[in-house]
């Protein structure tokens, strides 16, 4: 069963991203949104092999370049991800 993990907290202010990565399965993915988009600049995500998405408006609003290991999605793309993955777990 695949899970889409949604993170909106900056990884530089708490440990949600680290906790998420500990339980992230091979079929799971992470969607960064809000200040969670700063995860694009976190070393924690690089080279982990986990699929990473970022909400386009949030990375653009923060002028964060899109690394080659992440994909950007708009809101219709967010909806499609929530269909593609069996469950959506938001790290509130």
């Amino acid at each position: 069963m695949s899970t889409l993990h949604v993170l909106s907290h900056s990884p530089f202010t708490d440990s949600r991203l680290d906790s998420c990565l500990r339980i992230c399965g091979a079929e799971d993915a992470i969607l960064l949104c809000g200040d969670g988009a700063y995860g694009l600049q976190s070393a924690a995500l690089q080279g982990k092999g986990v699929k990473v998405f970022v909400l386009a408006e949030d990375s653009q609003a923060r002028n964060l370049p899109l690394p080659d290991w992440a994909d950007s999605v708009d809101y219709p793309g967010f909806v499609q991800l929530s269909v593609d993955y069996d469950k959506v777990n938001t790290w509130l």
Partner: protein
Amino acid sequence: MKFAIALYSAAHAPSSRRALLFAQAVLAGGHDIVRLFFYQDGVYSASNNIVAPQDEQDIARQWREFVSQHQLDGVVCIAAALRRGVLDREEATRYQRSAVNLDAPWALSGLGQLHDAIQDADRLICFGGP
């Protein structure tokens, strides 16, 4: 596909706007929203006493218009709402409070409505935090 959407943050939080844009994209994509459940600070997103600054988006109003326009089931957790002073006319009368700040299209109800929506929906999507 059927979606249940739970919102845990107030209208001034970016996550409330994100939830709204997601909900709009759900309907635009041809999916259904079985219920919107506003919980914890999310009850503030349903208050009709919110006055947004003129240079900011009025997300509470946009929520109200969205729910009305699509005749969605917008449920506000009654326990969370009472403790935050978000009352409909019935509750204001019951507890002898002078202010009423919740009316249509919203309905106060219990957490069971969230459980029921989760059973009915294919996906539960939660929004909260920043």
